[in-house]
């Protein structure tokens, strides 16, 4: 205890030196720094005002299962042991926050790409539901109570994964194909698709919730490290963000997305096959909805046609808060993920702070607007700095 007290000033000094470093200060000038500041402000606020919580202590028993640790009190009774932690700033809560963010964030990366290209995809909730149901049906077939339950789990997991992700990608491709060939506004096509896909999901699932997946699949998605921290949704979210960032920032295909969204006519005249770009962005949007659906059924253990109800608005909100411009040509994968994180932090923060739920929608709406305004202000400041630098030259 004494040692940790002596270490405190040293820890603060190290953190202070890190914050003062020119490298970090220059890194904070990147496009999403405004959002990052909002996230840090929220994190600080929640850390300082969330209070403390007694969390149960677990240990791994001789049979490998997690068991609560008990102590004996003065009266000789067994008392479950607990550790007091900050309600927001503890590993379990941060892992929970990352998990809760991941499903919307993954879809928001795909949605951002669509929005950057000047489109919109209202069908992501429907795609999510259909991919959940198709994946769940295949995985149930290979589950303990399914007809192929006695076989090895790996083929079932592979087929279930392909079914969920493949179905979603196919839905995205069909959306894109219809938008390009029929030349109908994406709002109309994806609005129709939203209802149709959920309807198909209902018909093939007969309105039932489908569970009973191979335990190996559940174990894989719910894989935990340390003190029961689920890291798979977080890891997949990071991978999708990196892939989205590389696609948009480093590949010619990504630059064509910006060009199409920025000025479709100019992009067409400069030789970009706009139809192909549009096809690809809806395919990617479908793909990310499929990945999110697969993670969801693995984590929660069931899929139904009611899944993802209203998620399209959450996903669009995350992308827009993340800096995607609804007029096209602007946005990023990282911004979409940070946007989703801001919304989820507010939502989780309301639970942590014990704020009456009746006020939650007001708070979320206000903070979403504030986040966008702050981000715009930061972008304006950055552009002024840039203009000042050029004028000095």
């Amino acid at each position, binding site marked *: 205890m004494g040692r940790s007290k002596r270490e405190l000033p040293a820890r603060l000094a190290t953190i202070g030196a890190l914050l003062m470093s020119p490298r970090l*200060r220059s890194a904070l000038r990147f496009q999403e720094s405004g959002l990052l500041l909002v996230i840090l402000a929220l994190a600080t606020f929640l850390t*300082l005002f969330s209070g403390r919580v007694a969390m149960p202590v677990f240990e791994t028993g001789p049979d490998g299962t997690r068991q*609560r640790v008990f102590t004996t009190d003065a009266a000789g009774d067994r008392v479950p042991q607990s*550790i007091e932690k900050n309600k927001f700033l503890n590993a379990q809560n941060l892992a*929970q926050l990352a998990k809760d963010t991941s499903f919307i964030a993954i879809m928001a990366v795909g949605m951002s790409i669509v929005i950057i290209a000047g489109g919109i995809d209202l069908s992501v909730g429907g795609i999510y539901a259909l991919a959940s149901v198709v994946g769940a049906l295949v995985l149930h077939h290979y589950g303990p109570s399914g007809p192929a339950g006695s076989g090895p789990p790996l083929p079932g997991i592979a087929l279930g994964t392909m079914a969920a992700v493949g179905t979603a990608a196919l839905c995205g491709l069909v959306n894109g194909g219809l938008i390009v060939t029929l030349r109908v506004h994406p709002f109309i096509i994806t609005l129709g698709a939203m209802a149709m896909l959920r309807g198909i999901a209902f018909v093939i699932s007969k309105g039932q919730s489908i*569970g009973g997946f191979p335990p190996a699949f559940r174990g894989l998605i719910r894989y935990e490290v340390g003190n029961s921290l689920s890291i798979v949704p977080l890891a997949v979210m990071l991978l999708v963000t990196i892939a989205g960032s590389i696609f948009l920032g480093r590949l010619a295909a990504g630059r064509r997305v910006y060009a199409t969204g920025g000025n479709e006519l100019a992009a067409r005249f400069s030789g970009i096959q706009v139809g192909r770009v549009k096809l690809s962005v809806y395919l990617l949007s479908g793909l990310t909805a499929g990945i999110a659906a697969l993670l969801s059924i693995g984590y929660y253990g069931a899929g139904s046609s009611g899944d993802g109800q209203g998620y399209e608005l959450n996903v669009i909100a995350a992308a827009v808060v993340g800096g995607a411009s609804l007029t096209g040509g602007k946005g990023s994968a990282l911004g979409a993920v940070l946007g989703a994180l801001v919304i989820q932090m507010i939502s989780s923060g309301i639970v942590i702070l014990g704020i009456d739920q009746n006020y939650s929608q007001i708070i979320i709406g206000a903070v979403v607007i504030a986040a966008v305004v702050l981000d715009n202000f930061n972008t304006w400041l950055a552009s002024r700095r840039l203009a000042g630098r050029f004028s000095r030259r």
Partner: protein
Amino acid sequence: MRVSFLACVAIGLVLGTTKPSPAAEKKSYTFGMIAKSQGNQFFEAARSGANAASRELGSKYGITIKIDWRTPNEEDAQKQADYIEQMVLAGVDGIIISSSDANKLNDAINRADAGGIPVLTFSGDAPASKRFLALGIDDFECGKQTFIELAKLLKGKGIVAAIDGNPNAANLQQRAGGFRSAAKAYPGIKLLDIYYHKETPQDAVAKIEQVMQAHPEITGWGLLGGWPLFTEKALNWPPGSILCVAVDGLPPELAYVRSKHVQLLLSQDAYGYGYNSVARMIERIHLKKKVPGPIENTPLTPVTLQNVDAFAKNWDKWLAK
């Protein structure tokens, strides 16, 4: 400015270190309560019951009981599971939930139980989970009773249809199953179908109107959820020309009994679900009693023209502000 701001974050990080908690006798309890959807008077009555139990039992035992209400705007089992996990981390003492999709909630409930946080379900069970108690009705029997009462009113002859809400909800599927099952015993009554609709009054009314346009020969309706009756003038037929039995007895539904559009309501004890949920939690956690379970079903209360006014007085208490 950024640096000083980030320094605050650093201080926050340092403050987030851990320390062991002293063991002390609990004087206050927080119960998380998760209903299926917001803005539904059924769940508002349950919430009101939970709050009343908190006040009464708190005063009786000299403790403080707080109800932390977290409910998705629309039915969303994934969000319910997230709420359970978040509430566990926020340190609640027990969780009361009306499950939208049991399959999706089993893991979250089991995890809460493993962390020493008891979970109780009401009007929407998760039977495969480790919840210690499920309060509700036997939904299959409720569906059966709805048909049987309708058949009695029709004197064993007629053409009937039914509407049901969320087709994914297990309890509503059970009611539909009971309704169909009972219909087999009445050869003089033809069951057209059970029609599902989005759980809003407008969608429910629209569904009834569509069905009536297509099948004007219908002589009886079974409303397995009361959604169409949450609006005024939903039933566009002369009172008594088509006979109707509906589940639940929420305030807007009572007007249809008075107008003789609905002959019988089968009311669940929504207020009692909330009250008894908190009472059972206190019995288990504070009084350290063994709560009998895991199922505690309550009977349906029939509401007819004869007792509708007396029944309506309950709602003054059940929806008290």
